[in-house]
């Protein structure tokens, strides 16, 4: 990262307000309640995707606001997305192995 790059993106002095932090906390509490409520409803096969989606939304707002990625240099976002891509590779390649084996029993 050149001097110019981090001069241009002034992140180190960005102060997120207390109000924002409390709002994020409130949102996380609401989503936690929603997770529990949803678990007791019968959405059939959709229960798992819904639970995962709520957890993903919670993780995203923690990352963006508590972890300040929204005000961080773009490089941080690239590293974060890169790690998710690698996690995806881990899942896709390993599943493509396990799910295509002709095993009746492990």
């Amino acid at each position, binding site marked *: 990262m050149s001097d110019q790059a981090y001069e241009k993106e002034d992140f180190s002095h960005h102060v997120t307000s207390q109000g924002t*932090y409390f709002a994020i906390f409130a949102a996380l509490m609401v989503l936690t309640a929603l997770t529990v409520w949803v*678990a007791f409803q*019968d959405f059939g096969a959709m229960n798992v995707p819904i*639970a995962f989606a709520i*957890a993903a939304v919670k993780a995203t707002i923690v990352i963006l606001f508590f972890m300040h990625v929204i005000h961080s240099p773009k490089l941080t976002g690239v590293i974060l997305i890169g790690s998710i891509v690698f996690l995806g590779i*881990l899942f896709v390649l*390993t599943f493509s192995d396990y799910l295509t084996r002709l095993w009746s029993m492990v």
Partner: protein
Amino acid sequence: MSEHAVNAHHPALRHHFDDLKQQHAAGTLGMWFFLVTEILFFGPLFFTYALFRSGSLDPSFHQAFIAASHHQNIKLGLTNTIVLIASSLTVALGVYFAQTNKKKALVWMLVLTLICGATFLVIKGIEYNEHFEHHLFPGDNFHWEGAPELARGAQMFYILYFCMTGLHALHMVIGIGIFVYILMRAMRNDFSPDYYVPVEVSGLYWHFVDIVWIFLFPMLYLIDPASKH
């Protein structure tokens, strides 16, 4: 240029950085790289969970995971979720108070974080104790009182449960150690709006551990709880 000269004499500035801004950028970036390795460290456990719960290797595991999760205490799991998210709030506010030079408030936020972290571990311990008493710890003493054909899958659920929550709890213990150190430095007045990168990067670690739990809670406690009878 004058700002640069001031920075050059800042006691917290390490000699291999041009200025505090660069030092801050390098510090947070380094922490993010570490968190990438952490994501891939937890990743295989999440994969193994998905593989077994899907029932694609052994179809009975799908039902076994539901039955096994019915032995989980949702109230304690929910309490711990709230405690951990609250601790993330206190960490985030700690960064805010460091940035705004409110040193006393920073110390209080760090103390509250430590209390939340310890509370989480105590509740986790109560849960583990319940599992031990019900012979749900995997191994020779594992005893499954439900349908016998689900015993193998139920034991697999508890293997994953103890591995995932155990690794998470280990991260909590390390996090508490880190925050004790940050608290000591905060009480020594080490931090200022110019220099608070240790608070920031420790916070990143703490939030990461929180995010892991955000995923673990529905995975381990909330698998079709309505079907419990």
